[in-house]
C-alpha cells in the first residue's frame, strides 16, 4: 500500500516539476513595441499623433513662453518663482547649462524628433493609401523641422538625429559642422513636408498642412536673412545671400497669404474671436496646440491660462469682452507670466491689443470691480488664453504656435514696402484700432516698423525673443544689460544642457 502510494507521490512530484517547467523568456503584455506595430492606417495615424503629443507636455508648452518672452522685457517672473525661471529672466548664465526649463525644452524637442523619425522610418513603406501615407510622412517631416528650427534658434548647432533611436548605441549623435549644415536639415525637411502635405479643406486644430510647412519655411528663410542682414554673429558668416533668402521668405509666405489655391486660412476680422477658445479652427490658426478641458492629465488639458493670470484669492472672476457688455468667467492664476509694466505702457494709445487683450480690472458676476491694477490686482494680465468654460484648473486653452497674422507680417517684412505688404500690415493695425502705417517708408524703415508691429501683434505668444535674436538686439534687454553684457555674441545661443554634453562624447 505504501509502495503504491510511493508511486503516486513520485508521479505527483514529477507532474509538479513538469508543470512548473518553463522558459524564463518574458513576453510583453499590454504594450506595443517596434515589432508589433506599424501595420494599419490607424497605426500610422496614432504614430503621427504621438509626434504632436510630445509638445503638449508642460515641459515644452510652458517653455515656449519662458524662452520666447520671459527672457526679455515682455514678461517678469513672480517673486517666488522657481530658480530656473528667475535665472532665465535675469540672464544668470552661470546656471544655464543645468537650467530645468532649457533642459526640458531641449529634451522635448528631441522626443518630438524621435517620434517623427519613427514615422519617417516606418510609414513610407507601409502598404496603405498613398495620400494618407504622404500626409502622415509630411507631418513627420514638418514636426522634425519644427523641432530643429526651435533648437537652432535657441542653441545654435545641436546633435542631429535623422533616424529613430532604439538602442543605447544610437544615443550619441554629433553636431553639424556649421550653421549652414544645421539649417540645411531644417530647410530640406520643410521642402519635403511641402511636397507631401495637402492643404486641408478646413483648419484641423492640432495638426499641420502644407500652409504650415510653407509658412515655416518662410520663417526659416526670414530668420536667416534678417540675422545675416542685421550682422548677427555666426549667422553673418553663413554662405547664403541675404537678398535670395528674403526673396525665398517672401515666396513661401506668399504661398500662404497671397495664393488663391490656399483657401483654408486668412485674417480673422474680429480681434476677440481670434482668442476665443471655442474656435481653434478659426481662419487665423495655421498651427495651434490641441488641448481640451476633458483631458485626464495636464498636457491633455491646459493650465496655460493660470500662468498668465494673477492670484486672486483662488476664486472665479469675470472679464469684460472687448467693448461689449458681455462678461466671461475665469479662474484665477499663479502669476507666473507677469506682464512687464514698461512693456504694458509702451503700447500706442488706443491699441485694442492692450485695451481688450490685457486686463487691468476683474469683476464679479454682477459687474462690480473686485480687483484692479494698480491696487489689489498685482499686474495687468494677458487674457489671450482665457477659457470661460474652465473646469477648476482644467481648460481648453490652446497655445498659438503659428497664426496667419504672423505669416502676413513675415511676408511684409520679407517683401519690403510693396502694396501687398502695406495692405497686410495695415489690416492688422486697423483690426487693433490703429491707423495705417506711414506710407512710403524705406525698405529698412518698413522692415523695422513691421518688426515693431510683431511685438504687439504677437505679444505673449512666445515670439519677441526670436525677433530680438535675429535682429541682433537681444543684448539690449534690460536684464542682459544688468549682467554687464554688451555683445550680442555673448547671448547668441543658450549652451547645450550639461546632461547632454556629459553623456554624449560626440559633442565637443
Amino acid at each position, binding site marked *: *500500500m505504501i509502495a503504491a502510494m*510511493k508511486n503516486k*507521490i513520485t508521479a505527483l512530484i514529477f507532474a*509538479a*516539476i513538469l508543470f512548473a517547467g*518553463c522558459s*524564463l523568456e*518574458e513576453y*510583453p*503584455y*499590454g504594450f506595443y513595441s*517596434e515589432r508589433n506595430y506599424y501595420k494599419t492606417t490607424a497605426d500610422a495615424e*496614432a*504614430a503621427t*499623433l*504621438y509626434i*504632436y503629443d510630445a509638445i*503638449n*507636455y508642460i515641459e515644452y508648452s510652458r517653455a515656449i513662453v519662458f524662452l520666447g518672452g520671459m527672457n526679455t522685457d515682455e514678461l517678469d517672473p513672480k*517673486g*517666488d518663482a*522657481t*530658480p530656473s525661471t528667475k535665472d532665465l529672466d535675469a540672464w544668470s548664465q552661470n546656471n544655464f547649462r543645468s537650467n*530645468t526649463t532649457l533642459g526640458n525644452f*531641449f*529634451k522635448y524637442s*528631441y*522626443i518630438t*524628433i*524621435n*517620434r517623427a523619425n*519613427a*514615422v519617417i522610418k516606418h510609414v513610407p513603406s507601409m502598404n496603405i493609401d498613398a495620400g494618407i501615407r504622404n500626409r502622415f510622412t509630411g507631418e513627420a517631416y514638418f514636426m522634425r523641422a519644427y523641432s530643429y528650427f526651435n533648437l537652432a534658434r535657441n542653441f545654435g548647432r545641436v*546633435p542631429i538625429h535623422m533616424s529613430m533611436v*532604439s*538602442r543605447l548605441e544610437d*544615443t550619441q549623435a554629433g553636431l553639424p559642422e556649421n550653421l549652414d549644415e544645421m539649417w540645411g536639415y531644417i530647410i530640406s525637411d520643410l521642402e519635403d513636408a511641402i511636397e507631401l502635405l495637402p492643404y486641408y479643406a478646413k483648419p*484641423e486644430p*492640432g*495638426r499641420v498642412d502644407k500652409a504650415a510647412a510653407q509658412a515655416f519655411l518662410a520663417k526659416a528663410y526670414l530668420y536667416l536673412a534678417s540675422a545675416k542682414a542685421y550682422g548677427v554673429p555666426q549667422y553673418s558668416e553663413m554662405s547664403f545671400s541675404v537678398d535670395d533668402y528674403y526673396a525665398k521668405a517672401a515666396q513661401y509666405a506668399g504661398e500662404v497669404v497671397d495664393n488663391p489655391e490656399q483657401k483654408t486660412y486668412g485674417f480673422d476680422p474680429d480681434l476677440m474671436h481670434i482668442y476665443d477658445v471655442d474656435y481653434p479652427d478659426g481662419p487665423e490658426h495655421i498651427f495651434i496646440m*490641441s*488641448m*481640451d478641458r*476633458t*483631458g485626464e492629465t*495636464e498636457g*491633455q488639458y491646459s493650465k496655460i491660462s493660470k500662468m498668465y493670470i494673477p492670484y486672486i*484669492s*483662488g*476664486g*472665479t472672476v469675470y472679464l469684460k469682452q472687448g467693448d461689449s457688455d458681455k462678461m466671461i468667467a475665469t479662474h*484665477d492664476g499663479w502669476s507666473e507670466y507677469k506682464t512687464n509694466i514698461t512693456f504694458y505702457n509702451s503700447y500706442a494709445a488706443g491699441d485694442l491689443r492692450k485695451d481688450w487683450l490685457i486686463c487691468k480690472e476683474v469683476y464679479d458676476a454682477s459687474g462690480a470691480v*473686485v480687483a484692479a491694477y494698480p491696487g489689489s490686482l498685482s499686474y495687468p494680465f494677458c487674457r489671450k488664453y482665457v477659457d470661460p468654460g474652465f*473646469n*477648476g*484648473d482644467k481648460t481648453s486653452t490652446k497655445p498659438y504656435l503659428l497664426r496667419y497674422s504672423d505669416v502676413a507680417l513675415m511676408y511684409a517684412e520679407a517683401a519690403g514696402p510693396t502694396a501687398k505688404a502695406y495692405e497686410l500690415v495695415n489690416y492688422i493695425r486697423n483690426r487693433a484700432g490703429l491707423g495705417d502705417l506711414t506710407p512710403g517708408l524705406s525698405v529698412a524703415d518698413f522692415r523695422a516698423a513691421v518688426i515693431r508691429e510683431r511685438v504687439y501683434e504677437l505679444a505673449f505668444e512666445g515670439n519677441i525673443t526670436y525677433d530680438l535674436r535675429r535682429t541682433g538686439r537681444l543684448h539690449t534687454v534690460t536684464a542682459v544689460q544688468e549682467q554687464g553684457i554688451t555683445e550680442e555674441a555673448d547671448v547668441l545661443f543658450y549652451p547645450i544642457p550639461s*546632461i*547632454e554634453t*556629459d*553623456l554624449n562624447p560626440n559633442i565637443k
Partner: protein
Amino acid sequence: MKKKILGFFLAVAALLIPGTLLAQNVGRVSGTVSDPHGNTVLGAAVLVTGSNKYAITDENGAWAIEGVASDATLSVSCLGYEDATLAVNGRAVIDIVLQESSFMLEETVAIGYGRMKKSDLTGSVASLDPENLVSKPSNSIENLMQGRVAGVQITNNSQEPGAASIVRVRGNSSMNGSNAPLLVVDGFPFGDAGNLAQINPQDIVSMEVLKDASASAIYGSRGANGVILITTTKASANKTSISVRQQTTLSQMTSELDLWHDPVLMAITQNESKINAGLTPQYVGAVNANGIYYPSIEELQTTWTTNTRWEDIVLRDVPVSNNTTVQVRSSNDKTNFVASANYYRNNGVFVDDYYQKFGGKFSVDQKIYPNFTLKLGANVVSGVRNYNPGRSFNRNPIFPVYDDEGNYWLYSASDYYHPVALKELSTNVTKGTDVIANAGVEWRMFDGFTLTSQFNFKHGETVQDVYNPNVYSETGNFNNGYGKIANWQDNNMVVDVYGTYDKVLAEKHHVTAMLGYSYENYQSRSSDLTGVEFVNEALGNENLQAGNPELYRIGNGLSKSELVSGLMRLNYGYDNRYLFTFTSRADGSSKFGVNEKWAFFPSGAFSWNAHNESFLKDVKAINTLKFRASYGVSGNQGISPYQTLSRFGQHKYYYNGSWMTAIGPGYKSGTTGEGGIYAVWSGIANENLKWESTTQLDFGVDVSLFGNRLNLTVDVYDKVTDDLLRERNIAPSSGFDRMWVNDGKIQNRGVEATLDGIIYSSKDWKVGATAVFSCNRNKVLSLGNAKEAGLMTDDRTGMQYEYYGNSLGQYRGYTNILAIDKPMFVFYGYKVDGIVQALDEGLSAGLTGSDAEPGEFKYVDVDGSGTVDEDDRCIIGDPNPDFLASLNFDVVWKNLDFSIFFNGVFGNDVINTQRFGQPSNNPLRWTTDNPTNKYPKLRDDRQVKFSDWWIEDGSFVRIQTVALGYTLPLRKRLSFMESVRFYVNIDNLYTFTKFTGYDPEVSALGIYSGGYPRLRRWTFGIDFNF
C-alpha cells in the same frame, strides 16, 4: 529522579526480553512503546518491514500485529522520536523504547525549507515568540515586533487604520529596489514585510528573522534584506483547546492639536504676514474677490461670534477599536487541527474612517500513514478600508460650517477641503479579499530521509470605489463629478519540493543535507473604470454610465513573473562541537534581462560550540558558549516585470473634437520634479539587467550562563550591496531620459545584541528582563558612473551626490541626498545662524534683496564667497539613528503578570516642517518689538530655503507598552474551562523626547509633516481558554 525510573524500566525490560524468546514461524506479536522515561508513547507506528502490516499504539502505548513471521523486522516511528528498527527474533511480546529525537529535546527554529535545533545554528537567526506581543490589537504582526528583535528596525510612522509598518533588517541597502525583508508564512513566500494583514497575529506561534547571508541565502535573489519566517499555530499533542479572545481598544491623542483657538491672534499674524510681503491684509473688514467678508481685527475682538471648533466636527471623540479571535485547536495521534476566526476593526481618529476585516483560518495535518503526513490549510481574509477625506480640522475657525441657506460654506470656488462636504459627498472605500490555500506532504521515505512537498496558492483582490463630488473636491470639480471603480487582483503560486537527509554517523558525525526545487508564478492584473461629468451626482460611482459617454475612461494592466530555483543546504556537525553549513540557491527569473537570467547565491558558515569542549564541559556556570562566523551572498530582485524590454508609449491626443490614441517610441515611466509634474521617458531595453547582490560577513557569539538564566547574543556584521539597481541618464538628444542599470554600492555595518535574563525567581515570583540593542552604520560607497548617474558635485568639498525622495514644496527643493561616503538620505541644505536683526547685518552676511532684511533667516555664507547661494549648502543632518535600544521587564507574581516595555531610537535628525507657520509658533515670530533670534518674521512670499533651522533631534524613548494581566485558573473548579485571563495594555503611554512636533517617529527620510498627535491606546482584553 528520571534517571532512576529509566534505570528501573530498562532493568524490567531486560528481564522480560529473554522470556519472550519463543521459536515461532508466524504469529501474533504485541507489546508497548515507551520513551526512555517510561512514559507510554501514543500514536507510534509499528510496521512489519516489507509488508503492509502495521499497528498504531493506543494511549497505553500498546500495539499488536497478527501474522508476523518470527524472522521479520519491525520498524517503529513516531513524531518526536528517533526511528527504531528491530528484529522480531521469534518474540511474541516486544516492548520498545524509543529515543526522543533531537527535535523534541530542544527548541527548534525555522530556517527556511526546514527546521533546525537552535544549538546547531551557524547563522544569525533571531527567534521571537509573539505570545507576549498580542495583548494589543494590530493589523499585522510587524507592527508588534517593534523593538523586539536586535537588528530589526520597525517604524510605525502612520496611525491610519490598517497602515503598514516599515521593516528594515540591518539597515537600508537599496536605492530603488525594496528594502523590506522577505516575509515567509509557513514556507510560503508572501513578499515584502510590512503589512501582513492576511495573518492574524494571534495565530502566529513563532517568528524567526534570518539576518546574515548564511541564513538568508536559501532565499537567494530575495534574501538580501533579510527574511522573516512566520509559523502559525498547531494544536498541542493530544489536546483540544478552545480559546476566545476579546480586545477593546480606546484611543486618545497624547497631546493637543496645534490649532488656532484665538481668532484674533490668528488674524493679527496673518495680516502681518501679508503686510510684510507687500500684499493687502485680509482681516480688514472687507469683501475679497470671492465675495467673502473678512472681518477686521476689531470686529473679531468684539462682534464676531463664529468660532467653529472644526476638530470637534472632524474627529471622533474616542476612537474605539475591537479585536475578537476564536481559536479551536485539537490533536490526536493522527490529526492536528486548528481553526481560527477573527474580527478586527480599527476606527481611525476621523469620523467614519475605519479599517475592518474578518478572517478565518484552518489547517489540518493528517497522518495518513505512519511516515506520511498530509498537510492542508486555508486562510480567508476580507477587509474594508473606508477612507474619509474630510480631514481639515485646521480650517479657519471664524467661518461657519454652513451658510445661511444651509449650504456648505466655502472660501472660494477652489475650496476643496470642506470636511463635512467631503465626508458626506465623497466615497473612497477599498474592499479586499485574500484567499490563501496550501497543501503539502511530508514523507519519511526511509531512515533519515524526508521528502517534503508543498503547494501554495494565494489569491488577492481589491475593489476600490471612488467618488469625488463636483464643486467640493478638486478632481470632482475639474471633471464635473468623478467616479471610479478600480479592480486589482493577484495570484501567486509556489511549488516546493525538497528532500532532507538527517543522520548521525558513527556517533559523532551529524550530517544534514537538503536538496530542493522551487517554482513560483506570480501574476497581477488591474483594471479601472472611470466616469466623469455626471448630470446627477446622487448615485456617486454606482452608475458610471451616467457620466458623459464620450469621456468614459478605462485602464487595464497585467504583470507576470516566474521564478525557478534550485536550492541546497549541507550541514555537518562534528561531535556537537564544530558545525559547518553550506547553503546555495540558484534563481532563474523572468524579470531579469535575457543575458542574465540565472543567479547563484552561495554562503557558508562555521560555528564552534565551545561549551561542549572538554575544558568547558565541567564549568557549571556556562551552558552555552558558541562562536559563529558566516559569509555569503544573497540578492534583491528589485526589478519590475518588463523593465528589461524595449517598449512604446501611448497617450491620448485631442484631435478634431475627440480623443484619439497616439502611440510611438518612448513611454512615460515615472515623474520627476517638484510635485512630480515632469515626465520621465524610458523604453530602451537593457538586456543585462539583473539582481542586486549583497555580500555579508557576520561574526556572532551566543552565551548562556547560570542554568540559562542569563542569555546574551551578540553579532557584528559587514554587508555590502553591489550592482544597485538605478536609472542611468541617457543623452536627452536621444528622446529618452533614463534606463535601468546595475551600478552602485552601499555598505551597512553594525553591532547588535540581545541580553535577557531572569533576575529573580521563586515559587511565586518571576522577574525577567530583556534588552535589545542595534547599531547600524550605513554608507553609500558608490552611486555608479557619475556622468551616467547625473551626480552633482558639491563644489566646496568635492562630494558627489544626487537628490533622493520628493522635492518638498515648502522649500521648493529636495531635502535628502545620497552622497558618496555618507549615510543614505542625509539632509543637504543651508545653515542658519539666527535671525537678521539689521539690514547691514544681513547684507554683510551675504544675503540679498528681501532676504537681507531684519527678521529674515541669517543663512551662513559657508564658502565665504560673499554671497549666500547654492554653493553654501552642506550636509546638515542625518535621519539614520545612531542606535536603537529597547528594554522590557516582565514580572509575574502568582497569577498576576506585569510588563513594561521601553523602546528608544537615538541620534537621528528629523526635519520638522511645522517648526514655523503653525498656531503654536507663529506668535513667537520676530517683530521689531520682539527682535528674537529664534524665529523669523512672518512674511507670506518668503522663499524658504531648506536649512538646519528646521532640523531637530529625533531621539526618543517611549514607554511603548505597559501591560497588566491576571489569569484565573479554573480547571479545578470548572471541568469545561481552563482559565480566564483579564488584562489591560497601554500602548504608547509616554514619550520622552526633545522633538517639538507631535511625534518624532517618521519614515526613513526623516521628514515630519505634522498630521495629528500619536495615539495612546488603552486595550482591555479578556481571554477565555476552554
